[in-house]
């Protein structure tokens, strides 16, 4: 292996990659612009929908009459902005109107005795609404808010009339206080998003270069051109491997930067009008994230290149990697997203999941160093295993020449079975 040759090949691969539209889009532009655009579109849409929904008038039918002395409740409903009361509609008819979308909710005053209430003087308001319709749910909320306000006001009046002072009436109060800082809230959101998307983006960043530099090279008929240069096979494979890993790391870290900046620039102003949230990453989390991204990129590059090395066309290469990508990356990734726990020795043994959880912990300010070390070691061992496997497979010259119709199984059957003709020393 020659470092000079590796450098020449590596820079050539990078130069070609940066001129390939698909690679630039998936490994550079997507990680940078996907999340700012996605977050902006998502929150703009949410704000728009919220505004539109709040502008709706809730059409509420009143069925029956409130008991004597509670006429003010109907007056309150009548005076509520955004509520339009309809009278003279029967309950059954009202339900039909809700189902047809011509009415949003029904407030039905039920006869206390008929409703089987223990206290005959009390009354019940049955609110009928369509839970599958947002506008109907909003009408329900508006109704409940008015009724709750009326009840509280009525109870205050009754208490005063009966000579009960407020201190005696309100025995205790329940209060709650969020002890998390705005930085904690920001870290929680960042940890959740970055640990998920960093890994997905490292995988996406490796995907196209891995296929392009193996199957793509065969499809373009440049593979044999490269094989006849004086660079050693080891130099060629190492340069390609480093190039794919570089693209993966670049995609992952660009993505982290984009998420971080877009959360601060787009999400914080929307979510934190009252300064409730702040997006910051502990400085120590940055080297942990970088180590995780590099380890992961080395592992995914090796795995993807091994699979794609059997393929004869770009399409074959994609088809070979995609199912494995889903199983090997996405499932462990979601395992690593369990928010109720930190990295454990067991999870540190599961590839991908361990890195996801390690990064999540680090962003949240949790640094379990022995487990971080275990995670990185597990990754390194797997990388070494993949490289050994790659060396073994590339020892078969017909793999180099693209035999086996791009199928790993045909290769396994022909070459790893009892008959192993064609296996030459590497």
């Amino acid at each position: 292996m020659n470092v000079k040759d590796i450098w020449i090949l590596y820079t050539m691969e990078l130069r070609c990659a940066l001129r390939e539209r698909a690679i630039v889009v998936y490994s550079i532009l997507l990680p940078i612009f996907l999340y700012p655009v996605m977050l902006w579109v998502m929150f703009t849409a949410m704000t728009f929908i919220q505004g539109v929904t709040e502008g709706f008038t809730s059409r509420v039918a009143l069925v029956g009459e409130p008991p004597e002395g509670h006429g003010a409740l109907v007056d309150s409903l009548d005076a509520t902005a955004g509520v339009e009361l309809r009278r003279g509609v029967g309950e059954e008819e009202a339900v039909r109107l809700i189902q047809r979308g011509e009415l949003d909710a029904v407030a039905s005053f039920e006869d206390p005795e008929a409703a089987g209430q223990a206290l005959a003087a009390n009354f019940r308001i049955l609110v009928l609404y369509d839970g599958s319709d947002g506008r109907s749910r909003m009408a329900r909320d508006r109704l409940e808010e008015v009724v709750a306000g009326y009840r509280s006001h009525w109870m205050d009046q009754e208490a005063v009339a009966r000579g009960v002072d407020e201190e005696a009436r309100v025995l205790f109060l329940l209060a709650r206080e969020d002890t998390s800082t705005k930085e904690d809230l920001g870290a929680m959101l960042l940890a959740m998003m970055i640990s998920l998307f960093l890994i997905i983006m490292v995988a996406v960043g490796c995907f196209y270069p891995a296929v392009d530099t193996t199957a793509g090279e065969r499809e373009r008929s440049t593979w044999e051109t490269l094989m006849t240069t004086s660079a050693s096979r080891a130099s060629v494979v190492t340069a390609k491997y480093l190039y794919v890993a570089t693209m993966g790391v670049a995609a992952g870290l660009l993505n982290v930067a984009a998420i971080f900046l877009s959360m601060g620039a787009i999400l914080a102003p929307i979510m934190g009008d009252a300064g409730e949230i702040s997006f910051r990453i502990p400085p120590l989390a940055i080297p942990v994230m970088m180590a995780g991204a590099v380890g992961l990129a080395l592992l995914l590059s090796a795995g993807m290149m091994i699979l794609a090395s059997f393929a004869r066309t770009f399409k074959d290469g994609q088809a070979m990697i995609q199912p494995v990508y889903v199983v090997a990356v996405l499932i462990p990734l979601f395992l690593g997203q369990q928010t109720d726990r930190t990295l454990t020795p067991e999870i540190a043994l599961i590839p991908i999941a361990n890195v996801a959880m390690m990064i999540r912990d680090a962003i949240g300010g949790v640094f379990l160093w022995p487990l971080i070390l275990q995670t990185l070691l597990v990754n390194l061992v797997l990388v070494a295993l993949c490289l050994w496997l790659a060396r073994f497979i590339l020892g078969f010259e017909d793999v180099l020449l693209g035999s086996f119709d791009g199928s790993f199984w045909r290769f396994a059957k022909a070459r790893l079975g009892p008959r192993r003709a064609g296996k030459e020393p590497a």
Partner: protein
Amino acid sequence: MTTIQATVEVQDLRKSFFDESRGEVRAVDGVSFSCRPGEVFGLLGANGAGKTTTLRVLSTVLRPTGGTASVMGHDVLAQPEAVRKNLGFYSASTALYPRLTGRETLEFFARINSYPPERVAGRVEALIDRFGIREYAGARVEKLSTGMKQKVSIARTIAHDPPVLIFDEPTVGLDVLNALEMAKMIRELGGEGKTILYSSHIMSEVEKLCDRIGIIHRGQLLALGTLESLREATGQHYLEDIFIHYVTRTEGSEGVGIGAMGELQEASPAGERPRGAR
């Protein structure tokens, strides 16, 4: 008296493959020849005769199953990198990187084949002038026409100034004018003292270009010599007739013919091993 040392030495070269349906296939079966500097050596054979496999072993893309082969004294198994450093390989399956420009292509191949770094820039400019590609040297290869690509491709084959050049069926897919241009360039390179191994199934090309011709069939070299010596040995004038003479002698006279493009048309059962004299 001075002896001219062989630049390419092939001794009893063998290469077998395992095929799922056919079992062991002997693609090259005991081929021996050697080449001298400045010589254009032609390997003539039908499709599947073993020409490409022989040349791929020589270029170290494939490893021989038996026998030896060396280029400029370097063994293909023991010193593959040294062999490739002394070799330029051109074939229909050695394409150019579409996203590099012509100039970048030449620079890359000169550097990766260990051409002295301080002389790379001068060499690239000299090749650009020699092949008349200055006008489009800055354009990406993917934008070039077939003829332009062919020139850049030959230039990249000799970018590191190797003493031995292999042209494996170089005119496949080229029109008449480009094929003639290719022949002209090969002749020039031979005139500069480079050893050229040229494989083809097109008789006229081999007849015009090659100083010596090896007729290869079913992995075996049936005959080897200058066109004149082959004529004398067979009593035939045209290379096509000479080729038929050797092939039919191997296969038996019945059931073998030659197609318009030099492809063997045979009636013998597929996969039957050739028998008879070499």
